[in-house]
């Protein structure tokens, strides 16, 4: 086990390097006289996972060392993010210009309240999913499978997400996107099974298209303003003629809209996500679309604050909510159902952004945080359900809550949270959005308020249906014992979900075959073991097929931790909303960001939004 030691050594050296960077660059601005230079921390969430990714690749043959390296790396990222979140409250926005080049020529990394908040939540979720997948790999004994690539890729994904959140210029944002996309391509097609290649082709082509649109937008922005630095852009964009501004604004929004899966650009998501291994789907659902939402927030506040496209965004948000949730209602596979709710709930965030008041923006930020946690948790739980029941199709599942009450609780809490049942954070976020819409008073926001309430109800319907059919109903339709036997014959060594090779389809096929072959409604007397296990009668553990009972603790623990994190968002909603409100205010004022990067002289030339001025007094 040389892994952790080496990792720590490398981390130390990375710290030293970035420390030098911070001192050279503009990082001193905020923190003179401190023992530890806070800006030193800023590049770490990008550097540490990248270094660890290389290390993990080198350690490909040593599973445990690899797992240790990635866990340590992501834990460091989480600690850094939380430390930065705290520091930003104290000392203001942290800025590092990489390599000491002046801002505008070099790349600046900026950690303001929004960035650090997003970074903290996302790294917590990433770490949770990593622990889950390590446990899954350990439980399945997947030595020699092609998943050696999993850890390095996952770390690159994490670095890409961090880079996107911290990026202080458009082109670096693009690089961050590409990092996470390239990693996500690999993760989505792990194992290269037919289904994953099919899903992957759609995903890859759509993502490439969005990247190209983004690249065009960057080229146009550069042609129009001569810079891609997010702090220099506000002043120069303000000076442009209206038509040019609109073109740039639209092209950026389209690029980010594809990433965030906003309605007309969202069809790729439910097609591609559900086929991936459970942890991968979970982390995609939690993070990737939210990076797009984050970019939209930046575009709408920092770059184009006058809100010319707000009405378009409102309509699009409504369509996203409704079309997404109607899709979810129609699904019979829970994974697909959740992919549709994912799309649908992006609509809430866009709604908040489009309303554009402090309240709306703060609620949108809070909702992003809530949704990252909840959606990831739900997909992780589904991974457990799939292990236990062999499928995630509602047609074949039944009585999961009786077989495993723990799984029932783990699913129920985040599902209700997603639907927005009152005390939970989902409700608080939605309530904030509704309040912001009503406060705005316009016709369109009011329609959106209605739409969001309807969507919330339909979400409740969709998840309640999943709950009823998969968790509560009597499992009369599937003969599990048979299914397992067929499964065991088909797949000699219980292949891991990560290593793939058609396993999911085979398993699903086996379940269907078993279902077709046996009587659909078995008498309880006929198959005592299976029926007993499913209806919760006392059954000797040995009689139940091994595959069904084995839900490793290592996988349950991170899932439970994320459920608790989701609940703690409810408990900590007060402070969190305050931070979200602060960051919303900071975003709408624009000046703090510019001042942190370029200094007060440049900030004086940037007007803060009229909306922010108006809301400074009345918004709270």
């Amino acid at each position, binding site marked *: 086990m040389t892994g952790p030691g080496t990792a720590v050594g490398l981390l130390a050296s990375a710290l030293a390097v970035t420390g030098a960077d911070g001192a050279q660059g503009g990082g001193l601005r905020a923190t003179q006289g401190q023992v530890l230079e806070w800006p030193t921390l800023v590049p770490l969430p990008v550097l540490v996972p990248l270094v660890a990714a290389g290390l993990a690749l080198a350690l490909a043959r040593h599973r445990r060392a690899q797992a240790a390296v990635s866990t340590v790396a992501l834990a460091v990222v989480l600690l850094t993010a939380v430390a930065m979140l705290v520091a930003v409250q104290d000392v203001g926005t942290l800025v590092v210009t990489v390599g000491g080049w002046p801002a505008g020529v070099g790349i600046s990394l900026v950690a303001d309240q929004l960035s650090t908040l997003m970074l903290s939540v996302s790294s917590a979720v990433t770490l949770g999913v990593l622990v889950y997948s390590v446990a899954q790999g350990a439980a399945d004994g997947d030595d020699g499978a092609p998943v050696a690539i999993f850890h390095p890729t996952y770390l690159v994904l994490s670095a890409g997400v961090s880079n996107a959140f911290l990026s202080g210029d458009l082109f670096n944002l693009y690089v961050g996107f590409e990092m996470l996309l390239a990693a996500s391509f690999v993760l989505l097609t792990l194992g290269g*099974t037919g289904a994953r*290649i099919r899903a992957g082709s759609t995903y890859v*082509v759509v993502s490439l298209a969005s990247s190209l649109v983004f*690249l065009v937008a960057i080229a146009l922005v550069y042609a129009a303003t001569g810079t891609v630095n997010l702090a220099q852009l506000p002043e120069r964009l303000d000076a442009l003629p209206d038509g040019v501004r609109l073109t740039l604004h639209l092209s950026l929004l389209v690029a980010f809209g594809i990433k965030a899966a906003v309605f007309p650009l969202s069809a790729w998501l439910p097609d591609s996500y559900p086929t991936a291994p459970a942890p991968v789907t979970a982390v995609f659902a939690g993070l990737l679309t939210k990076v797009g939402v984050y970019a939209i927030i930046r575009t709408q506040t920092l770059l184009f604050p006058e809100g010319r496209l707000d009405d378009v965004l409102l309509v699009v948000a409504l369509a996203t909510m409704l079309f997404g949730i109607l899709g979810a209602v129609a699904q019979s596979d829970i994974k697909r159902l959740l992919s549709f709710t994912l799309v649908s709930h992006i609509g809430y965030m866009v709604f908040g952004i489009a309303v554009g008041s402090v309240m709306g923006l703060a609620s949108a930020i809070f909702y992003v945080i809530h949704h990252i946690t909840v959606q990831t948790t739900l997909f992780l739980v589904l991974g457990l359900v799939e292990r236990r029941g062999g499928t995630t199709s509602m047609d074949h599942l039944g009585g999961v809550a009786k077989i495993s009450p723990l799984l029932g609780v783990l699913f129920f809490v985040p599902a209700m949270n997603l639907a927005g049942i009152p005390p939970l954070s989902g409700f608080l976020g939605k309530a904030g959005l509704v309040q912001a819409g009503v406060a705005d008073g316009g016709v369109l926001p009011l329609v959106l308020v209605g739409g969001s309430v309807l969507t919330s109800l339909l979400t409740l319907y969709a998840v309640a249906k999943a709950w009823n059919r998969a968790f509560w109903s009597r499992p009369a339709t599937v003969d599990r014992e048979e299914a397992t036997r067929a499964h065991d014959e088909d797949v000699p060594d219980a292949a891991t979900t990560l290593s793939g090779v058609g396993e999911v389809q085979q398993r699903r096929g086996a379940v269907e075959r078993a279902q077709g072959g046996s*009587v659909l409604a078995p008498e309880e007397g006929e198959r005592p073991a299976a029926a007993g296990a499913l209806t919760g009668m006392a059954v000797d553990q040995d009689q139940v097929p091994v595959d069904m009972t084995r839900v490793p603790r290592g996988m349950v623990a991170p899932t439970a931790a994320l459920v608790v994190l989701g609940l703690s968002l409810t408990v900590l909603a007060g402070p969190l909303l305050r931070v979200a409100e602060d960051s919303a205010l900071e975003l709408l004022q624009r000046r703090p960001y510019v001042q942190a990067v370029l200094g007060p002289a440049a900030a004086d030339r940037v007007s803060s939004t009229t909306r922010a001025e108006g809301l400074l007094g009345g918004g709270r």
Partner: protein
Amino acid sequence: MSPALALVAVVFVLVATGVYLVLERSLTRVLVGVILLSNGINVLFLVASGRAGAPALVGSAPAGEMSDPLPQAMVLTAIVITLGLTAFLLAMAYRSWQLHGHDEVQDDVEDRQIRSRAGRDETSGSYDPDDEETPVEERSEDARRAHASPAPADARPAGSADARSAGSADARSAGRAERREQRGTARSAERRARGRGERP
């Protein structure tokens, strides 16, 4: 800043052909399309950097005559990224060919199922007969079968709510027959396509 017209024309041609190819179903063509597109966009960056000037090396020319080095740096980065993604796309197209004998982007399985169900006017898989009846504990096979053929109104998509009235029943069955026909042709086309695909 006065961009060269030739460059703009090059961008136009590359992007136009690229978009055309990306819209194809075959991954290989998509790949070529992506390459053309990204090259077009790289040239667009050159347009964005303004008029051509002296090389941007310190001391080789007065600073005012140098061309803008920043877009060049970006283009370099973009080229590297495109290279990586091209490799990945190529690998994926190859894998798709290995698995299916062709490299065409396929329709989503579930989508196809839902479409064919709609064609047959069947209840969706997520439709639960128990929802309608008094909450019976046992869901018997008979109940399922009874519900399977005449689709209850609730199970159909929201748009067909008006079809509940008895008068439209005939229209519905006519539509069903028509759809069945369409499905037949679609299926034979699919079979033909499959036959073509499994050449190797």
